[in-house]
């Protein structure tokens, strides 16, 4: 029954065409832009681009897990701002604290915020989009309250903290290293643990997941908590990178996160999404942001182009999916 010889390639074709499509797109756009502005393909610029993408790519992992369960976490952007503000205030008051401690502080505080959102969604049974929309405003409001409306500025932060973003390890910015670590940890979590598997099960069929005994409420809570941990981590990174903690940090950024996920092939209806895809989606958005100004496309056009690119990518994906399904149906009919 099982013909092993053909298996890997067929599966790659089915599962990986989205990723392959994005890779082709990334290579094409890089070549085109590189041809018009050679500076684009220099190591320095590519590194800057990755640096800009690092935080987005981490946030996209958390968002992907939530999307895979069929939810959405709109509170990510203000959760990030709140953790960032708290981190800024803490480091201002205690400049001697180590950057590593600050990162764990972000992880912990973010987990708490995410866990709270998760409780509302999982046990309170509030629709994710409504629950997280509310929490988006709540966390943003708390950011203003605790800061009294004031910023934490660069001169109020110790150098050791800012070096988290400027320092390098093996030629890569620390932020990129952190992002890679996050991807490594989540790769194992998503693909090699039963909990990771159960997240996909909940997203692809909630009813069936419940029937086989998966604690669907816990899984739902867990993905918001993980999303929280990651936006908490990102909040600290963000403040270090821009050397300021502001009240309106990352306002509107949640849509960029969702866009990165969608570009990477995550299904808004749940059940589908891959870590690799999300990484590519984030990088693509990073390229669009970085490259368009280099070929002197007006920033006014940038957003519109970003929207068009997402739309085209998704539409192409639909067309390919349909033709793959047609081919499968034909094959099935031949078998019968």
């Amino acid at each position, binding site marked *: *029954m099982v013909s092993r010889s053909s298996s890997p390639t067929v599966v790659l074709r089915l599962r990986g065409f989205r990723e392959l499509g994005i890779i082709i797109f990334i290579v094409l756009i890089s070549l085109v832009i590189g041809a018009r502005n050679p500076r684009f393909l220099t190591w320095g610029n590519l590194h800057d681009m990755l640096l800009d993408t690092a935080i987005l790519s981490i946030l996209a992992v958390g968002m992907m897990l939530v999307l895979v369960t069929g939810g959405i976490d709109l509170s990510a952007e203000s959760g990030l701002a709140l953790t960032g503000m708290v981190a800024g205030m803490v480091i201002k008051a205690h400049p001697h604290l180590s950057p590593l401690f600050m990162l764990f502080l972000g992880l912990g505080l973010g987990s708490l915020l995410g866990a709270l959102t998760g409780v509302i969604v999982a046990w309170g049974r509030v629709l994710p989009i409504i629950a997280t929309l509310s929490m988006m405003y709540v966390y943003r409001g708390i950011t203003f309250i605790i800061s009294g409306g004031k910023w934490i500025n660069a001169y109020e932060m110790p150098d050791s903290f800012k070096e988290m973003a400027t320092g390098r390890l093996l030629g890569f910015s620390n932020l990129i290293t952190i992002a890679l670590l996050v991807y490594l940890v989540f790769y194992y979590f998503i693909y090699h643990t039963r909990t990771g598997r159960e997240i996909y099960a909940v997203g692809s069929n909630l009813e069936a997941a419940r029937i086989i005994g998966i604690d669907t409420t816990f899984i739902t809570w867990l993905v918001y908590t993980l999303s929280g941990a990651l936006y908490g981590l990102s909040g600290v990174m963000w403040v270090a990178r821009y050397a300021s903690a502001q009240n309106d940090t990352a306002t509107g950024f949640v849509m960029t996160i969702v866009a990165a996920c969608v570009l990477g092939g995550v299904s808004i209806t749940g059940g589908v999404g891959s870590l690799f895809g999300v990484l590519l989606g984030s990088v693509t958005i990073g390229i669009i942001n970085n490259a368009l100004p280099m070929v002197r496309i007006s920033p006014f056009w940038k957003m519109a182009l970003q929207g068009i690119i997402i739309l085209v990518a998704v539409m192409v994906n639909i067309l390919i999916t349909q033709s793959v399904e047609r081919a499968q149906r034909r094959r099935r009919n031949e078998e019968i």
Partner: protein
Amino acid sequence: MDRDPCPRVLYGADVENGILELRGISKFFPGVRALNRVDFDLYPGEVHCLVGENGAGKSTLIKIITGVYQPDEGEILYQGQKVVFANPMVASRYQIAAVYQQPASFPHLTVTENIFLGHPLIHPKSKRLLWPAMWERARELLRSLGSDLSPTAVVGTLSVAQQQMVEIAKALSIHARILIMDEPTAALTRRETEDLYAIVRKLRAQGTAIIFISHRFEDIYEIADRVTVLRDGKSVGTWKIVEIGEQDLIRAMVGREITQLFPKAQVTPGKELLRVEKLSRIGFFRDISFSLRAGEIVGLSGLVGSGRTEVAQAIFGIAPADEGKIFVEGKEVTIKSPLDAIRNGIGYLPEDRLHQGLFFPMSISDNITIAILDDIAPSGWLQPEREHEVASRMLELLKIKAPTIFHPVSSLSGGNQQKVVVAKLLAARLRILIMDEPTQGVDVGAKAAIHQIMSDLAKEGLGILMISSEMPEILGMSDRILVMHEGRISGEFSRGEATQEKLLEAAVNVERSRKREVNISG
């Protein structure tokens, strides 16, 4: 049995001018012949009952009359003229309307909006909707049915009986000449049923032709003028109701040769695995008590809607019972969720595999092993080799046709998808299995394989509670058979004493309808 397919004398009906005639209608679905050269006719002013077991083809026939399906063979005559009901809109233009057991109305819209959906009253010039006129008309229609429902009430807030009323009013609003009622009394109380009979009689007197589908012999002998029996997609015959007794009707419904062989091996039942006592869930089932022993397959029979699935779902914790006790291996257990059930060694194969059984985007392997992650990942880390070993073994055991175990389940054919659900349950190695229609929709080969596996599992000492609508399957596979009727157990038979007739008699509860007749006459 008197066979008189074309009665000359019929109470009140206009037999000279038949309104609808189906000639030699056949309908094929992949692998199934749902209808096989069925003839059917209908006169204005008669109530024509359509009866048959689950899967006899009643619904398919109705869908052909309402234009949902197109027949593959045969022709439809409307008032003697050949017609094609290309879609439901065409059928409604011929003034054909249908009312279902659970009305398919729009719960958020008002009574008036539901009644006039699809054919609103519109101002001829300005094209605006004439709401006051529609409210007035809706009120009139409802009043003619003896109902004082408000035309602006929101349908979702009404009772099932009231929603049916709205559907009937909708039928009247298109001046329906043919009204199809699909098990309209199944969800009604006795009182509401009487009211419905009154409306049906009134419509009949006004010359409406009514097709009435019901499992309940009470309904059939109360309201029918003629009855047509379908069995396995064929029409067994049409009789005037006064000419056919209950026993003959039952025989017409089941009279089928049992040709398939079922391999349930004789096993001496071991210790008791599961016992339920006086299990009740308000509105669904009452006082259900039975036991299941190791090595036994207990068949749960009864018509669709008799509460079989609800009992299974209560034992499995999907919709827990309100009252009663469940014992597993002699110990009383509390089952409030599927997780509780699984911890007590109970597994469930849902009837609705599409919505309750499969994870479509995930691979075949992932689907098969998702319920046994405890084995595959004892410490939380998945072990792909073990996963693939289990999945490959199941693929071969059930002969699932798939290129590899890594393909998504969504790429499989329907029959193979069902086998994956069965594989998932078998992989879980539980002591007590509840299987709701285990072989529904799978091909003959897969069916035999699944039956063989069920028999083997029983031999290994598992207990299986099997719900099935297929008589041969129930009779062939079960050591004992419980029959349900309207939420209660109406009969229990050992393998030796069960026959198709006895099971159907218990399923339609002839005794109870007979008692009722006596009550009415006395």
